[in-house]
């Protein structure tokens, strides 16, 4: 299966030096975003591997580790998540990819015993700084879950929930319609907005959940295996939707489905589990992070190649 790169950028030779990355590399994203955000120049800390540096990062992780009690679920992650692109986290079960995803918007705060060390910078602000309000973080960084989880309320109320919560004062009907249109659900549900969200099919429910997430106008969308409970046709619709949404949102998606990662993402991070023989501690590590086309066609690490070709994991 050949991955289909979503951006038709020419695969120029990866620039070796930091900061000197060709402007073509992330141009599509840059032109769409860049609302006053200074271009990232601090790539000097990156190990000089043959990675293409991220130009405009929405997240900048420095040695991020997530612990549950004394157990290190995922350790020493240093990576940059690009703005207005789709970044996929792949890897075997237990490698900490979902854990890392959930720490990006501080959902892990809700898990007892969870703690995060290292620096997690979102748009120049440390997400884990003591004076940061986690609720505000989550409002900006929305999340779509593995299992569609609409509220047991009407379709309309599901979408209106977030705006109401955040004191939206404006045309709520318009916002609901616009959000449902963006996920391609409006034509299917416009005559039954008062019906329960649970009356929809699984795929429709998941799109409703995405509509609910984007109704609060977030900046980033985190998706935790959003298609794993859906049939192939519903999955395809969600993937199309992800393509459309990335012009407006930065998207991070965790997936078990490698074809899906290849189809939807611009960059892919491959995680794996390191097992400490002495303590039996299983810690998730970032093995390789690069352009999706490179990860799937020409990975730098043997472990990555083994995984993406199905020989391991």
């Amino acid at each position, binding site marked *: 299966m050949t991955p289909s790169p979503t951006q038709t950028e020419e695969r120029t030779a990866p620039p070796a030096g930091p900061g000197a990355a060709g402007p073509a590399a992330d141009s599509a994203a840059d032109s769409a975003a860049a609302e006053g955000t200074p271009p990232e120049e601090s790539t000097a800390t990156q190990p000089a591997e043959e990675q293409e540096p991220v130009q405009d990062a929405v997240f900048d992780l420095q040695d991020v580790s997530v612990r549950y009690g004394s157990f290190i679920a995922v350790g020493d992650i240093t990576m940059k998540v690009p703005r207005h692109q789709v970044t996929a986290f792949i890897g075997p079960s237990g490698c900490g990819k979902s854990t890392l995803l959930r720490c990006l918007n501080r*959902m892990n705060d809700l898990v007892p015993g969870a703690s995060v060390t290292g620096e997690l910078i979102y748009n120049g602000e440390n997400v884990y700084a003591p004076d940061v309000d986690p*609720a505000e973080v989550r409002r900006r960084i*929305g999340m779509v879950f593995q299992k569609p*989880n609409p509220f*047991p309320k009407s379709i309309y109320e599901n979408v209106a929930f977030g705006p109401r*919560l955040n004191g939206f004062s404006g045309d709520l009907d318009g916002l609901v319609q616009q959000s449902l249109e963006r996920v391609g659900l409006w034509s299917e549900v416009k005559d039954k907005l008062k019906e*329960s969200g649970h009356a929809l099919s699984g795929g429709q429910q998941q799109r409703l959940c995405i509509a*609910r*997430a984007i109704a*609060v106008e977030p900046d980033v969308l985190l998706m935790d295996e959003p298609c794993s409970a859906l049939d192939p046709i519903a999955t395809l619709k969600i993937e199309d939707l992800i393509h459309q949404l990335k012009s407006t949102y930065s998207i991070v998606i965790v997936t078990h489905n490698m074809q899906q990662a290849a189809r939807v993402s611009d960059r892919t991070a491959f995680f794996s589990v390191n097992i400490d023989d002495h303590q039996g501690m299983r810690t998730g590590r970032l093995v390789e992070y690069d352009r999706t086309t490179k990860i799937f066609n020409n990975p730098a690490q043997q472990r990555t190649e083994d995984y993406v070709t199905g020989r391991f994991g």
Partner: protein
Amino acid sequence: MSVITDQKPQDPPPGLRSRKRRRVADPAFRWFVTITGTSVFIILAAMVVRTTTEAWPIFQHQGFFGFLTGDRWVSGGSRSDDPADFTGVYGAWPFIYGTLVTALIAIVLALPLALCIAFYINQLAPRRLRKPLSYTVEMLAAVPSIVFGMWGLFWLVPNVLRPFFEWLESWAGGFFLFEGPVFGPGYLAAGIVLAIMILPIITAIVREVIAVNPMDQQNAAYALGATRFEVMRKVILPSSFSGIVGASMLGLGRAVGETIAVMMLIGSTKSWDSSLLQRGDSMAALIASLFKEATPEGVRGLMAIGVALFLFTMVINVAARLLVWRIGRVAGDAAV
């Protein structure tokens, strides 16, 4: 391991007809369960029929609505069961009022508190405090009501409630619910102790209901930027609505039927006053305090009170069902 065998085939598997033991046990069990299951109807019917026939002459003597709305209660000494011979006056209103206001005070005070305690135990309390806290709540539910009554009468009323009532009377005494003079025991004292008594059962049930609230919906709300309080108010409470109503009904049922503690705290007078600071009596407490010395006619009067009490709880139950059915649908309770 090889599965190839050269053994002769075993006995053929047993036929489709059931073995003897089950042929006997199964129908017997079914009959037993059917009888016990339907016996609830029989018990209920027997109770309703018996008390109503006993009370019937009183209703004839007073008229049913006269009985419910009359505010005088004087037992007569007649031994006959002919209403024409009755010499007493039977007005149940003071006791209906007593039951109504004490139960209302109890539920109004206990429900919000129970919600707060349950929410604290479930969501905010440190993990190692949760178990001890919920055990304590359940233990509080097991304290016999006579103990609550004694504690209320000999400690809470003189030390806490009386000063509070005096302040209340001086501040709002002009309002018909808080007119003096202050005695101590009375509707409000009984209601407050009842609130403490029904708090544990409501808390325990609400805690269970909150605990089974689906985590994924809470997560969805958190991911939209909701705070803990908002998740509680907008996700957990609406979808736990029917459970909370159920818990309240159990609490209310206990408050309505509670006898001994109310008897000790309500002040036991047969006269009626609307002020919550006054003494009165409740239906259950009246029956308990009068039945020993009652004449045959008086017993019929108390039976009539029992019928009224039963009707009262039935109305509460039906109202609760309607409430769950009406509001639960609107609030989106998954259980409705």
